């Protein structure tokens, strides 16, 4: 059946991946361009990488973004895992409909709305409670953890839906306490999904411009804000170099994560 249509399907895939990857490849190629005019080739050079590493504003912003992303992803992992367990295993409780809504809506909510609404919340809270005092790293972490947890919750829920519960039952029957079962059986078995969730929350935080712009303070400029203001002024070879570093790091991380998932799923139960 597929033999006749195979060339057509291959052509579709080739065109689709060309569309997805051509812009990324062009960024990488031009990051090694000696010319300042990004799209005119003037020979191979690593000059922009040197300038990028010497760019203090970008270095500081990158460090701040990594710090925020690590904190937000960790918080999102804890909250999202609990939420994922609730979604997958608690079929009935008062307000479940609202809970399902609140864990799925952040996945699609336009960022400008999330950003504005969180800013107004922080301003109102400061007005009433005196906390958070001003805006900065703390408020960005809270905002990123909130939308990161929705992604973690969906991943954990999907993994638990495919989870073989006889393993937990065996442990319970052998006399393990419920908390012990959770930490010794359940969580280790879903660890690849937890890692994926953490990485996703981390990446989303690292990538976020809009929400962070709303809830940041004067002293907390994240990497996307620096990129955005530089890009607004036109193309810049340093940003191409930064993009290349980004792509390399992300590719390596994703490859490691998928390799770990593959290895773990082999010989265990079916992948989610």
């Amino acid at each position, binding site marked *: 059946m597929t033999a006749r249509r195979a060339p057509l399907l291959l052509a579709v895939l080739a065109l689709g991946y060309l569309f997805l990857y051509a812009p990324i490849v062009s960024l990488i190629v031009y990051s090694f361009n000696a010319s300042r005019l990004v799209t005119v080739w003037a020979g191979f050079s690593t000059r922009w990488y040197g300038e990028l590493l010497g760019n203090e504003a970008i270095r500081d912003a990158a460090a701040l973004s990594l710090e925020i992303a690590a904190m937000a992803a960790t918080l999102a992992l804890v909250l999202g895992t609990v939420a994922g367990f609730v979604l997958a295993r608690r079929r009935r409780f008062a307000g479940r409909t609202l809970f399902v809504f609140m864990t799925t809506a952040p996945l699609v909510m336009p960022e400008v709305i999330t950003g504005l609404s969180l800013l107004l919340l922080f301003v109102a809270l400061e007005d009433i409670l005196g906390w958070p005092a001003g805006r900065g790293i703390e408020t960005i972490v809270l905002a990123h953890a909130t939308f990161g947890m929705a992604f973690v919750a969906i991943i954990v829920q999907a993994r638990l*839906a495919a989870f073989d519960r006889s393993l937990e039952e065996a442990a319970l029957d052998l006399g393990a306490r419920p908390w012990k079962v959770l930490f010794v059986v359940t969580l280790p078995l879903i660890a690849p999904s937890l890692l994926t969730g953490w990485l996703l929350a981390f990446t989303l935080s690292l990538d976020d411009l809009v929400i962070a712009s709303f809830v940041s303070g004067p002293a907390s400029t994240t990497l996307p804000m620096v990129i955005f203001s530089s890009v607004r002024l036109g193309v810049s070879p340093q940003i191409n170099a930064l993009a290349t570093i980004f792509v390399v790091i992300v590719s390596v991380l994703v490859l490691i994560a998928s390799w770990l998932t593959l290895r773990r799923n082999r010989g265990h139960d079916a992948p989610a």
Partner: protein
Amino acid sequence: MKPRRGNSAAWPALALPYFWLLVFFLAPFLIVAAISLGQSAIGIPPYTPPLVFAGGPVPALAVNLGNYALLLGDSLYIRAYLNSLAFAGGATLLCLLLGYPMAYAIARAPRAWRNPLLMLVILPFWTSFLIRVYAWIGILKPNGLINNLLLAGGLVDQPLPLLNNAFSVELALVYSYLPFMILPLYATLERLDPALLEAATDLGCRPLRAFLAVTLPLSLPGIAAGCLLVFIPAVGEFVIPDLLGGPDTLMIGKVLWDEFFINRDWPVASAVAIAMLVLLVAPIALAQRALGRGGEAA
């Protein structure tokens, strides 16, 4: 599902994410709604709320509908609103037309290939959104990659206007949101039993008819989920119309941003947010059902 003793101990933990989302997700919308009825003012914060606690025991109510009147009265807002609908709708349709064949091809690929192919769809999503949008500037600008190639090949005499117009905005929307269409489509197409298609073929169905009568109806849940995942965020997109758009491509997300950051008019920005939410409330409710179903079936 019968209750299990293994879980009962953990359920107080339910309160944690619930409370968190009430405070950091739901409550903010109520505040936005309240401030959209407030008045812009000079100060910190730059507005007066509709409820004023001015000494007395009963707060004075000063509801101001002027922000909404402004949205309805000024054609700029209405045009941005309609533009957003048109761009997001067009992007959804184009993503479907591009994404469906891709998802289908991945789902019909040899089993060992499927995960790597899917990973290749997801990978761009893990790299910076901002940088991927930025990449198109270098490709589309008058002295960019495409125009340089066209000029060098003698196909055009002067650079084509590819940037800062409806074309570049729509292209970047499709490019950025395509993975969100492919993933749910793949999930439904991959689960589809090939025996159904074989049965249709054995009964004399031609391939096109078998596709229309079997594959397409069975993949409707994936189509619905994919369309919603593209349409909803695309309506509120800010980065794409800001970096790749022009004067004719104003979108509602950019209007909100400008009201907030440039005009510093928080009440009008809030009213714009509420107007956008009213538009998106039905799609979001549908998305929740589509995603919920997908999550439970996965």
